[in-house]
């Protein structure tokens, strides 16, 4: 029998550290059924027993206010009960953490509490025996980063064997929050001796981070820093990448050409389709890895909650009520979970506006396009260019929300749920590197998965279109790809890019934005690297490149995001109208952007 343990805890208490140190390499990542939120679990063996450890998302209580908390509640109240629950509590913030414990106990869960973050004091002054007596469950001090220490909590959970699964006499589900807090305070009084310390640094930094004027500026500065670092750090990895994969790829093509038993078209498929298309996208892995690493760093440090708090009042002015900021920031990673994250917005109208605005937030799949184009046209200023695009996307999202406000009737004044802002500010901390590495690896894995499925598929289709009909020169205007792209290219002529390659790339980009690059690489037949850059610089003028990047930023994000819009709004009509809207907005901004660029760089072409 596998012993099933769930890991719960408030956000930023060291839950991931605990999970990572205990599970090591045996982690399995999937999604929660019907959700895009990750579910991490691991099978571990300890003292001859098999244990399945599931890491639940961070939660402050079981009254679900966020999508994460809803998952925790669903997981805990599902039919397949966990044999035990280990709650990680933060030693410096016991009262707030133990509130969740009272919620778990009132549901009759078998809970073991692991006190983490003992800090330099080593948890002195916390009497875990007294805590255990007070709550009627085992408490243990652990250092979540150390495997042996973390395993202690698992052992305790194993020993408990459900002994604590009885309706706690202490806490009932009907108890008011006040009653619970008073009970917690009562127990803590006898179990914890320590002076009330105020983390001075946190407060001082917050004078900037939470200042209504300086805060948003600081946020912009930090984001800019992230883009800058992304380019700075990924450059050496990039060269290494070329070295590692360039030669073997060429060798593979050569071997395929020599192999008599393979069909004649195969080397071309391998070189122009698979290697060119896939390689073009994969070559941006270093940038994607660096950026996700830095964004995770920001999240784990506790800063992101501050950014959300300080940007909230800005967003509100644009009609994006209350909690929209968190899903919007999630949109920088991927629009799909961001759109699903709007479920936490109770008010229908605000939710709809948020859903429709999120696709303007630049997701990581759009990054390769910016990297390639700004590298070709604005060398040395890539970070500035990428930063401007991200800010433009954010600004368009806000403007779009503002103008959409009057479009959706009803919902005005729908009670106080409309614009509630209540955000917990976790203590600042230096992120634990191992967690960052695990998270980054995870985002790379999901990227690789897309590369192996959608992008590979699209590349092969693209190769076929560029080769057919039989006998035509590869990637020429006469090919199927050329004629399809050619139909649309007049539409894009005012934006400065009227080659069929560009039109086709844009059409393909609706499948997934990474495909934009692989489409160029396959239809040019160049693969990634210098050759692709040369073709791009030949075919685009700088102003057309600006227009192209803006268009890619703003038009239909991808089919998956449209699917998410459909399922969250429940309306095909809305989804359809939204798609047209995105294309129109993209077109207008690309046009304006192109001429603005021409105006500033001097000289409008005749």
């Amino acid at each position, binding site marked *: 029998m596998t012993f099933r343990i769930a890991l719960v805890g408030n956000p930023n208490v060291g839950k991931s550290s605990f999970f990572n140190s205990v599970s090591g390499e045996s982690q399995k990542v999937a999604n929660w059924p019907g959700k895009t939120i990750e579910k991490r679990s691991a099978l571990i063996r300890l003292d001859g027993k098999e244990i399945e450890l599931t890491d639940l998302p961070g939660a402050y209580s079981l009254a679900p206010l966020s999508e994460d908390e809803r998952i925790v509640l669903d997981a805990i109240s599902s039919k397949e009960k966990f044999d035990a629950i280990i709650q990680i509590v933060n030693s410096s913030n016991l009262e*707030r953490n133990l509130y969740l414990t009272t919620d778990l106990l009132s549901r009759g869960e078998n809970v073991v509490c692991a006190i983490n973050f003992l800090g330099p004091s080593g948890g002195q002054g916390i009497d875990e025996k007294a805590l255990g007596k007070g709550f009627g469950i085992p408490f243990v001090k652990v250092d979540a980063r150390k495997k042996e220490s973390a395993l202690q909590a698992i052992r305790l959970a194993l020993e408990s064997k459900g002994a604590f699964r009885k309706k706690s006499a202490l806490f009932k589900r009907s108890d*008011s929050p006040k009653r619970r*807090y008073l009970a917690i305070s009562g127990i803590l009084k006898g179990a914890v001796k320590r002076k009330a310390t105020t983390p001075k640094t*946190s407060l001082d930094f917050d004078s900037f981070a939470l200042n209504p004027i300086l805060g948003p500026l600081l946020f912009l500065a930090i984001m800019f820093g992230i883009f800058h670092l992304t380019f700075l750090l990924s450059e050496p990895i990039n060269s290494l990448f070329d070295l590692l994969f360039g030669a073997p790829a060429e060798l593979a093509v050569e071997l395929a050409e020599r192999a008599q038993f393979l069909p004649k078209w195969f080397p071309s498929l391998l070189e122009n389709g698979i290697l060119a298309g896939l390689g073009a996208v994969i070559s941006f892995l270093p940038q994607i890895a660096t950026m996700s690493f830095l964004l995770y760093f920001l999240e784990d440090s506790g800063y992101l909650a501050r950014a959300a*708090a300080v940007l909230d009042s800005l967003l509100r002015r644009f009609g994006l009520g209350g909690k929209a900021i968190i899903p919007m920031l999630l949109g920088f990673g991927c629009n799909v979970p961001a759109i699903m994250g709007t479920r936490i917005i109770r008010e229908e109208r605000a939710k709809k506006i948020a859903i429709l605005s999120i696709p303007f937030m630049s997701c990581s799949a759009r990054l390769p396009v910016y990297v390639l184009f700004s590298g070709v046209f604005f060398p040395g200023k890539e970070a500035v260019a990428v930063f401007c695009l991200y800010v433009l996307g954010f600004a368009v999202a806000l403007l779009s929300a503002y103008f959409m406000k009057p479009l959706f009737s009803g919902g005005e004044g729908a009670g106080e749920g409309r614009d509630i*802002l209540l955000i917990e500010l976790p203590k600042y901390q230096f992120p634990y590197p191992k967690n960052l590495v695990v998270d980054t690896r995870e985002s790379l894995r999901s990227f690789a998965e897309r590369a192996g499925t959608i992008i590979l598929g699209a590349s092969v289709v693209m190769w076929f279109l560029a080769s057919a009909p039989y006998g035509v020169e590869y990637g020429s205007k006469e090919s199927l790809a050329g004629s399809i792209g050619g139909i649309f290219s007049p539409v894009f002529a005012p934006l400065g890019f009227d080659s069929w390659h560009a039109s086709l790339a844009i059409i393909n980009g609706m499948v997934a934005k990474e495909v934009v690059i692989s489409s160029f690489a396959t239809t040019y037949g160049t693969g990634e690297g210098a050759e692709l850059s040369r073709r791009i610089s030949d075919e685009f003028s700088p102003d057309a490149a600006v227009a192209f990047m803006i268009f890619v930023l703003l038009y239909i994000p991808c089919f998956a995001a449209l699917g998410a819009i459909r399922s969250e709004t429940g309306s095909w009509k809305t989804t359809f109208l939204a798609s047209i809207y995105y294309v129109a907005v993209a077109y207008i901004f690309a046009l304006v952007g192109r001429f603005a660029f021409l105006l500033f760089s001097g000289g409008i072409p005749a």
Partner: protein
Amino acid sequence: MKTPQRLSDMSCGRECVVVEISAGRELSFRLGELGIFKGAKLSVAKSIGKGPVIVRVFGGELAIGRGQAEKILVECLK
């Protein structure tokens, strides 16, 4: 006799006790879960312009929107 003031009007560094929450059931419950209920002690860590009020309560820090802070009446302890 002290008169209750709105939390949104409190200046930084003040310690106070909640005397009244004039909010509906849902907001009251949520505030309660975060440790803000009648009789709870809190201190104002930051309150700037139109931004959120940052309070320290039960050892944690919390950003409360101005609109919600207006609904919380407090009395100063000192």
